[in-house]
């Protein structure tokens, strides 16, 4: 039996959302959904695993604060201790309050930048990356649902039309 890929195209995110719910209730596996903007609640409807972005943010923040501590320790204590306002300049611990802004900023910098980069790479949006979307209109005003079907496609197509798809395309694999 041949394996077919069906693209159901939707005009409106509300219809898409209810369609996703109904199709999943019928035990049909949705491979991917393309959308021009984030649709609230779609991740839950698709049954996606919860994002691990928060965990990466925490790890990146820890990397940031560690590197900042090492950097400022090296600069201000080991390499070139300076007497600024009579502050204890040979001890990291005693001089800590003046280092906290640096540590705070580096935490934010690392967490924010590395998170953005992770997000982009994870979505395949690195330089030289190509678009996965089978239909360019998903970058404008259409929503697209990808379903793989073994064998008879009629059932899935009917279901898509019933739940509000405005257009159905098919690709033979």
């Amino acid at each position: 039996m041949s394996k077919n890929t069906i693209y159901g195209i939707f005009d409106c995110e509300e219809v898409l959302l209810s369609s996703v719910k109904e199709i999943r209730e019928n035990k049909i596996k949705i491979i991917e959904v393309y959308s021009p903007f984030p649709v609230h609640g779609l991740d839950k409807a698709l049954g996606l695993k919860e994002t691990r972005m928060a965990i990466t943010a925490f790890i990146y923040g820890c990397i940031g604060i560690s590197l900042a501590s090492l950097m400022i320790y090296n600069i201000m204590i080991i390499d070139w201790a300076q007497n600024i306002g009579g502050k204890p300049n040979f001890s990291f611990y005693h001089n800590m309050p003046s280092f906290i802004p640096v540590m705070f900023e580096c935490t934010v910098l690392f967490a924010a930048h590395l998170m953005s980069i992770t997000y982009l790479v994870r979505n395949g949006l690195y330089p030289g990356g190509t678009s996965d979307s089978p239909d360019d209109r998903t970058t404008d005003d259409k929503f697209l649902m990808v379903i793989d079907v073994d064998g008879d496609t009629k059932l899935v197509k009917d279901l898509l039309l019933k739940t509000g798809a405005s257009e159905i395309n098919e690709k033979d694999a």
Partner: protein
Amino acid sequence: MFTITKNAKTLSMALMVVGLIALIFGFYTDAHAAWPSLLFNTYFYLGISVFAVFFIAMQYVSEAAWSIVIKRIPEAIMSFLPVTGIIMLIILISAAMHFGGNHIYHWMEVGIMTEGTENYDEIIAGKEAFLNTTFFLARSVIYILGWIYFSRKLKKLSLDEDKHGGLSYYKSGIKTSAWFMVFFAVTSAIASWDWIMSIDAHWFSTLFGWYVFAEWAAIGFATILLITLYLKRLGHLENVNESHIHDLGKWVFAFSLVWTYMWFSQFMLIWYANIPEEVTYFNARLQDYNIDGDIIPNNYKFLFWFSMIINFIFPIILLMSRDAKRHNSRLILVCIIVLIGHWINAYLLVAPGTLGPHGHIGFTEIGMGLGYFGLFLYIVFNALTKVPLEVKNHPFLEESKQLHT
């Protein structure tokens, strides 16, 4: 409709009795220390109740929808504002009259602004245009009456909306709230300078108003969250779902961090610059006292670091993850920690400047705090019983019920 459980009623009564005993005990044994204790407890609970007004106003002007199902809780907390406001005015007036051993404000001492007298203090005399008793009391009356006026007006609009419906109440609420925001922005800052910062009259901090506001916001959100969870546990507020709790948890988390940010900004700049007129404030909290050669160990040093750590470390560690903000017992734990931490911090705002080396947290302080807590429970819960726990006819009610994050 909410009815006060018997246990809650007994608890609030018992706490009020403890508070009354502490009040009498405090004034009987050492009135000089009892006034600052009353002041910082009043400041703490006044902060919670005026923040509730701010919360309502903030929801109006930002046209927020998520909070509508819990709107009645800050509205009930607002009803504690007149009580704290009046007690605050009593403290301030008696301070101005030097009544009953009230020497909270050093700049009110007789002759401190008259050149040639024994008490004359040049720096304080230079601040006379702002720090004089008449203007001070007039200002305080204006803040408190203004806040009470806005709180009553917002509450009335909410109740009228329940009765008659229509958009006009909502629009009027936005207008009232916008005016309140402007009024509160100015008055909350000046009130914090007047009531708290002027205790250490030689010292000033330009971010003190924000620091106090951040504290009020942290304790205000913690209180709103605790009452929400309490009512939810009793089976009320069926439309409040996990997402509402999550959002309130985010606020507690966020404002704990804002408070720490303010605390540290104030501390770090002064510590770093190390200018005598600025560091006196932290010396009174961190250095041992040296009175005519006698070294008196500082009572506040431990509390100073302790309150800072429990107001910062506990919220950030315990509430960082998404699941934690949806975990009721975790939230209750953090809210109680935050409230206790800020209560200690409120003590530290007042006591070192008024009592110096003699201040300590004892029965008077804790008893008054508990008494206030009992009074707070009694008045706020009574206010909750008088109206339905959920608003009707609010344009965003349905949206609030659908909240999911």
